[in-house]
């Protein structure tokens, strides 16, 4: 299991080197900085050092136990990230593809609503609005009850 909370960019390929030995399926997901308004140049990601690592580790261990994963990786960045940059990635390895897909979706649902990160849009004029959590993100967790 690999969990990293970092400011620096990373390459998905580096996470996958030797990943999931013995698995039948590997699923990867990358989250990129997207400009919805046409006025955004970057996102500023704030987090809660200490709690972030604990929360992400717990989410990872829950997924690992639930799907008996062969391997799992989560990298999540913080700080200032330009449009188009990779914010985060998850990778799951399992015996079968359904487990790998489901575990990746579970990780994403929980990272969205239970990992202590907050995003703010940065435009040409400087910091703008904080990105609001969507109720649909919170609702998404109920499907795993």
């Amino acid at each position, binding site marked *: 299991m690999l969990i990293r909370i970092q400011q620096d960019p990373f390459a998905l390929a580096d996470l996958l080197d030797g990943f999931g030995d013995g698995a039948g399926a590997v699923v990867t997901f990358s989250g990129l900085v997207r400009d919805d308004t046409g006025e955004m140049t970057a996102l500023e990601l*704030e987090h809660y050092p200490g*709690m972030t690592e*604990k929360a992400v580790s717990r989410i990872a261990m829950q997924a690992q136990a639930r799907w008996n994963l062969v391997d799992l990786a989560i990298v999540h960045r913080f700080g200032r990230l330009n449009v188009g940059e990779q914010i*985060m990635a998850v990778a799951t390895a399992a015996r079968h593809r359904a487990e790998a897909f489901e575990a990746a979706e579970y990780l994403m649902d929980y*990272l969205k*609503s239970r990992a*202590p*990160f907050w995003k*703010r849009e940065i435009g040409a004029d400087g910091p703008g609005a*904080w990105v609001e959590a969507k109720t649909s993100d919170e609702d998404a967790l109920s499907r795993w009850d």
Partner: protein
Amino acid sequence: MKIDVLYFAWIRERIGEPRESIDTGATTIRGLVEQLINSDERYAAALSDLNSYRVAADQELVNFDHKLENVRELAFFPPMTGG
């Protein structure tokens, strides 16, 4: 009892500090929030609507009725937007 209190995102901006040490006789988080709101309008602006933010006690998400006994670090923050 003194508790380290941390603020994040727009809560931090409204209060104007990332963290502070608060002396309180409150027994629950709800009681501490009431104390803060009554002490200064900055806290009222940040913390009045309990539905708009979350709280963690010693880095675990808890509800507002959580007891403050043995809590060293509290954090107030908006709903998370990771991923």
